[in-house]
């Protein structure tokens, strides 16, 4: 795959980028007095929805996922390598597999929880969970489903769906990064998995989870060995950060959180910081004229935009204070 193959899509993205919400839009949303006013602001942007219906049902995810699904669909059609898009849509595919696995394990109908986003149609995923075989799907995905079903059949643990799908999601991301062989993408994946592991450790230690729990939930697909993280976790979350993360390129951000924390790290601040680090890594590739990075950066921006809109709409509907919303807002594209 040549980097110049992306020149068409990158030109198209420059047009799409203008449709992203601006800081002014966010300010207007933040200043809205209620949900109706917030929806009025959102109506003037690229989002299309029936205002009365949204006010009635409060189902924000319906139109947000619809919008996101259309964008991914368009990008799948114009992007030369679909794995670049999969980088973001895999999360939805693995979510759908979790739903299907839990449906298989418990016999309850959970299909309404599926999100029709991703490279693979829902029917193909359903077929995989039913037959445990597929010629169309990636072998990592197939292996994950087979392992989860096998584990459930032996031990009867429903959480196998979550454990195996989360593990294989990271494995799949790593495989995509290796195949794309793009240094910026590899750097982003390295940071994402390592930082997700860090967030998991902090959350687990706050909930006083055991060593074996950490062994189950941490991913082995990062650059820091899982065993090293588990060993360092015995000394607390700050020890994990100091021992294993301070040689990373993004360590200056982490210094900040270590300095702010006395005994324990605030996981909410850490989650926001992780988003900021990934955002900055994405922005490094934003102005590359060639290659997949502009697509990646655009999709990341779109995902964060959806998160911010959901946060603001839910916030306005529930009269949550502006400072609480501002504190939780994810990075804004181009800022």
């Amino acid at each position: 795959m040549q980097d110049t193959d992306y020149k068409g899509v990158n030109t198209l993205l420059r047009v799409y980028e203008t449709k992203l919400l601006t800081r002014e839009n966010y300010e207007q949303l933040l200043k809205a007095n209620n949900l109706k006013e917030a929806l009025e602001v959102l109506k003037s942007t690229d989002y299309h929805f029936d205002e009365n219906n949204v006010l009635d049902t409060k189902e924000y995810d319906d139109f947000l996922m619809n919008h996101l699904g259309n964008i991914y669909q368009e990008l799948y059609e114009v992007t030369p390598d679909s794995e670049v898009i999969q980088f973001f849509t895999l999360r939805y595919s693995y979510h759908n597999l979790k739903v299907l696995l839990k449906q298989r394990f418990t016999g309850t109908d959970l299909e309404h929880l599926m999100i029709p986003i991703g490279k693979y149609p829902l029917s193909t995923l359903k077929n995989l969970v039913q037959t445990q075989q597929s010629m169309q799907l990636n072998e990592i995905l197939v292996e994950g489903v087979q392992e989860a079903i096998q584990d459930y059949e032996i031990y009867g643990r429903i959480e196998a769906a979550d454990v195996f799908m989360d593990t294989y999601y990271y494995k799949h991301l790593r495989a995509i990064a290796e195949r794309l062989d793009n240094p910026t993408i590899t750097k982003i994946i390295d940071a994402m998995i390592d930082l997700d592991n860090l967030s998991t450790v902090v959350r687990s230690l706050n909930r006083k989870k055991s060593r074996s729990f950490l062994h189950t939930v941490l991913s082995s697909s990062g650059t820091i060995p899982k065993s090293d993280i588990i060993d360092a976790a015995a000394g607390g979350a700050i020890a994990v950060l100091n021992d294993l993360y301070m040689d990373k390129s993004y360590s200056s951000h982490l210094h900040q959180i270590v300095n702010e924390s006395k005994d324990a790290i605030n996981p909410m601040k850490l989650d926001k910081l992780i988003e900021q680090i990934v955002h900055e890594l994405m922005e490094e590739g934003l102005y590359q004229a060639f290659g997949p990075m502009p697509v990646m950066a655009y999709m990341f921006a779109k995902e964060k935009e959806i998160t911010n809109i959901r946060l603001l709409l839910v916030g306005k509907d529930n009269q949550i204070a502006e400072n609480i919303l501002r504190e939780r807002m994810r990075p804004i594209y181009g800022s």
Partner: protein
Amino acid sequence: MARLNVKPTRMELSNLKDRLSISTRGHKLLKDKQDELMRQFISLIRENNELRDEVEGELTQAMSAFVVAKSLLNESFIEELFSVPDTSVTLDITEKNIMSVNVPQMNFTVNEEEKNSEMQYGYLNSNSELDDSIEKIEAIMSKLLKLSEIEKTCQLMADEIEKTRRRVNALEYLMIPQLEETIHYIQMKLEENERANITRMMKVKDMGKA
């Protein structure tokens, strides 16, 4: 006060006197029952109010934390995380008798055997704020169940108090005054009959002398 529609006979008077004595005794008993029910109800309602304030305060906090946490995640992600509960709760209800009111006594048993895994939900599609809000909601659970028991007891007792109050009032302001008035009426009537009888006898005696 309306008098009962009965014939003014000695037999009826005796019946009514019996009824009055039973009604007066019943009234006293019911009044005592009402007082005791009120006493227990007031202490329960006080406990209920305290618990309700406590639960409502904590629940409001937990729910607003949950709203903020869920606003950062897709709704389907959250529903998927909790689509299969990791524990089940068994409820045994026994009945307790408070002043002839059968109130429920609820025993909730959390099936600990099912809690053999530390994994409640996946960490990928959740966040730390969700952990906190779920922990808060879990902590309120036992108080919430206790509150449901007390509220149901209060509701049943309130119904019984109302029923008893109606009976007490009916006896006090209707039944007993009616009986008393009817008894008085019969007594007057009988006395009048008696006097009429004496007068007639005297008159007959006078006629005999003449």
